[in-house]
């Protein structure tokens, strides 16, 4: 075949070796147990892996082959202590957000802000305020860098995708107040640990996190000065969904339930009336202040709220989690993220049934999805959003050779309008193609395809005064990728690949092909 000769001409040798290792066995991936794997063809396995990870690559394929797809999938759903490659881990470990807890970090930043504000001289004040903003930017950049390194290289690929999914579902935006100092902790303490756990635990962690409380203004929500923002989004976006059967009255009642839940960035606690002391809760900068809480009787979704203080909020979160609308709404969103802009209703129904049967165990709901024939037999039709397009391309091109600089990755997703923590509205980025397949988006995507396909694109350039760039070659033209998907490539794509004048151009065309846009 013409393509094969071209392939051999360009294929780097070690890439071929790895690929042969995977393909030579060519035994169907073992399947069995509850978690059935993909159909036993190289193409089907590639597509399955491409759908279940941030992007198929040779090293992950090898692990799946060694472990068997059923066991590998179970490990994905119950990840334990996923480790990063050494260089990536070293980068993460050296970060301020890895070394300083939320409370200390916010205290440091608050001091810097107040010191700057107290300056009398306008010029000096402006410089100090800029320094404060730059430090906040640096902290946000650390969080984004860590997120990308884990997405690219963590063996716990399902957990990493779910962390992004929940980050988007429970969206916060970096430009509000000092949220940039909170992003790292929000992700690491509220989202990632619960990403595959009980939805109720996740919802609780998010709802009590200062990042969310500040983003949706619940730190301003107090008895007699109701702010409905968080209450509304908690029902509309986080749990029941916009058609979930709640009323404007429910929004107002929930807002009253949520009064007093907020943030205290001072070192001292407020002075409370004596009888309220037992209801006061503080953990770091999180605070429940009973003096700001509306103590009147309340009813939510037809049920009386009977607790006292923070217990009211716990009761409300229980109620929202167990509501059937929440099972339906979140299940549909999960299926939309993982499989299709228009997921089959029967599949969504089965996921929602699992949700109700397991009291919202996210991993079990995902298992229902991943092992469904609608999932394992699906053709790649889901359009990759910018995050996935960039990550899957880098994973494919460089496999487990960890990049030294994720700056280009962050710039690419920024250029395509999906920066991490950059969605202003609480609804999160859209999960459907129409948001990401516009004219400008696609021409930008082709430019990025060329950058990734042509060389290291700065991914292996270290920062700092003595920046060095290591040589790196994208490994796209390896037999694994090509043989695994060649049957899925259209004749037009093959014809384009045949016109490549260099390995770099071959890579560019492959990453720009329609087949590389979908999974």
């Amino acid at each position: 075949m013409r393509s094969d000769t071209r392939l051999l001409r360009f294929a780097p040798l070690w890439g071929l070796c790895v690929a042969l290792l995977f393909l030579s066995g060519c035994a169907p991936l073992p399947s069995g147990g509850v978690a059935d794997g993909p159909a036993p063809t190289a193409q089907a396995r590639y597509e399955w892996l491409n759908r279940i990870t941030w992007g198929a690559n040779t090293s992950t394929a090898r692990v799946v082959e060694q472990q068997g797809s059923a066991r590998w999938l179970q490990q994905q759903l119950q990840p334990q202590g996923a480790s990063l490659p050494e260089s990536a881990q070293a980068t993460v470990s050296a970060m301020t957000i890895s070394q300083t807890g939320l409370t200390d970090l916010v205290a440091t930043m608050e001091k810097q802000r107040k010191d700057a504000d107290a300056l009398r001289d306008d010029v000096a004040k402006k410089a100090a305020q800029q320094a404060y903003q730059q430090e906040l930017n640096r902290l946000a950049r650390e969080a984004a860098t860590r997120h990308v390194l884990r997405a690219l290289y963590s063996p716990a690929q399902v957990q990493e995708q779910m962390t992004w999914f929940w980050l988007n579902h429970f969206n916060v935006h970096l430009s509000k107040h000092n949220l940039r100092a909170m992003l790292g902790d929000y992700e690491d303490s509220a989202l990632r640990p619960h990403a595959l756990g009980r939805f109720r635990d996740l919802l609780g962690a998010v709802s009590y996190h200062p990042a969310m409380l500040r983003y949706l203004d619940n730190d301003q929500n107090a008895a007699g000065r109701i702010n409905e923002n968080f209450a509304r989004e908690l029902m509309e976006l986080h749990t029941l969904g916009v058609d979930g059967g709640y009323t404007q009255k429910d929004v107002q009642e929930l807002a009253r339930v949520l009064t007093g839940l907020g943030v205290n960035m001072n070192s001292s606690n407020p002075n409370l009336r004596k009888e309220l002391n037992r209801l006061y809760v503080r953990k770091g900068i999180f605070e429940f202040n009973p003096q700001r809480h509306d103590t009147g009787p309340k009813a939510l979704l037809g049920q009386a709220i009977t607790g006292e203080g923070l217990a009211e909020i716990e009761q409300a979160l229980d109620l929202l989690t167990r509501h059937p609308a929440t099972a339906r709404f979140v299940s549909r969103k999960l299926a939309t993220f993982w499989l299709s802009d228009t997921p089959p209703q029967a599949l969504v129904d089965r996921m929602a049934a699992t949700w109700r049967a397991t009291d919202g165990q996210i991993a079990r709901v995902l298992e229902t999805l991943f092992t469904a024939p609608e999932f394992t037999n699906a053709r790649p039709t889901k359009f990759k959003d910018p995050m996935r397009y960039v990550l899957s391309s880098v994973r494919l091109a460089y496999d487990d050779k960890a990049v030294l600089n994720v700056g280009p990755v962050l710039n690419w997703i920024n250029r395509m309008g999906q920066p991490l923590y950059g969605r202003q509205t609480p609804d999160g980025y859209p999960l459907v193609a129409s948001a990401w397949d516009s004219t400008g988006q696609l021409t930008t995507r082709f430019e990025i395809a060329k950058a990734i396909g042509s060389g290291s694109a700065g991914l292996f350039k270290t920062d700092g005064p003595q920046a060095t760039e290591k040589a790196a070659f994208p490994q796209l033209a390896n037999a694994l990728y090509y043989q695994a998907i060649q049957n899925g490539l259209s004749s037009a794509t093959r014809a384009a690949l045949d016109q490549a004048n260099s390995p770099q151009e071959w890579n560019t065309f492959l990453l720009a092909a329609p087949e590389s846009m979908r999974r």
Partner: protein
Amino acid sequence: MQRRQFLHTALHTSAAAALSLPGVQLHAATGPTTGAPRFLMVFLRGGMDAASLLPPVSSSFYYEVRPDIAIAKPDADLTSALPLTADWGLHPALRDTLYPLYQQGELAFVPYSGTDNLSRSHFETQDSIELGQQNHSSTAYGSGFLNRLATQLQGRPAVTSPAPMAFTDQLPIALQGELRVPNTSLRNLSKPSVDTRQSRIIAAMYQGTALEGTVQSGFAVREQVMREMSAEMDAASRGAITAKGFELEARRIARLMREQYALGFVDVGGWDTHVAQGGATGYLANRLDELGQGLAAFSQEMGSAWRNTVVVVMSEFGRTFRQNGNRGTDHGHGSVMWVLGGAVRGKQVVGEQVQMSAATLFQNRDYAVLNEYRSVLGGIFKRQWGLSDSQLSNVFPGFKGARDWGLV
């Protein structure tokens, strides 16, 4: 044949030949005639201080509460306000750029304008304006009023069916929605790395797929942008001084709006002046100067198409009327809309107004909003495209009462 025209034709031909995209008409063939209405929205993100742009020079209260940053009453002094009406002056930084347009009758202002959103949050207010919906009516993110306007105007004769375009990196909410709108930032243009041959090969891969048209028109838009920009490179190579910053961007936008896109959006940041914003000179004055130069350049570059053009400049909100402890201003409410263009009946400061005093402050801190932005825009859209009330209610759902201030 003049050099520029030759270059234009040569590039056009080579691009067309090289791309040879079936089903894609190159834009020059379908662009608006100079007589077609054009509308550009310039969104100032960050909350521009209306009281510095348009100092209320008849208000003694203004001079009381802004001891360090007020603009002096019109006077011979070059740092004093430029006279507009008995009540209003114009920031002196706009003396050479926009003031002439005002005097020629091509620039008007609508003070006391804005939205009823009271969050005083930048992003929430910006979004609510771009969504153009009733506040709190729904959270239908993802459908902006300019997209709905373009949708309403679809299917009209080519001359009045404006091709929309966002001159931004990301499609702004105002242009998101049902209609597919291209977006390209013109701020930092670099030569595309995917060359013409590669573009043709990539486009060929998409033949017969659902994205065929999108990919082809994406490349065509890119070719169009690069072709228009060749004039700029040509000028630069002959030693002309290249415009910088917003002026350069505005000239590029004008070239595209002159040739092809009749409905545009661009945003300009940097208006959040909590500290040391300055008065007749200083930080804010520099920003206004840069913006004024860009808008004036846009008017020149539009050529004869300027006659049918309306540009609206607005910000999400104004700022506090009193200066704060940092010789700056904090987030306020009412702002001012600037309306300029060859089609504009300018040299007037229109809309509902009150005498500015302590008693007329909104919540004892801001300009009130007496002219809802949808009312002002609706009036302009009615005039520009002859929209009916029911068509306008599709552009601004739930909003009635577009007010025709005779701006166009």
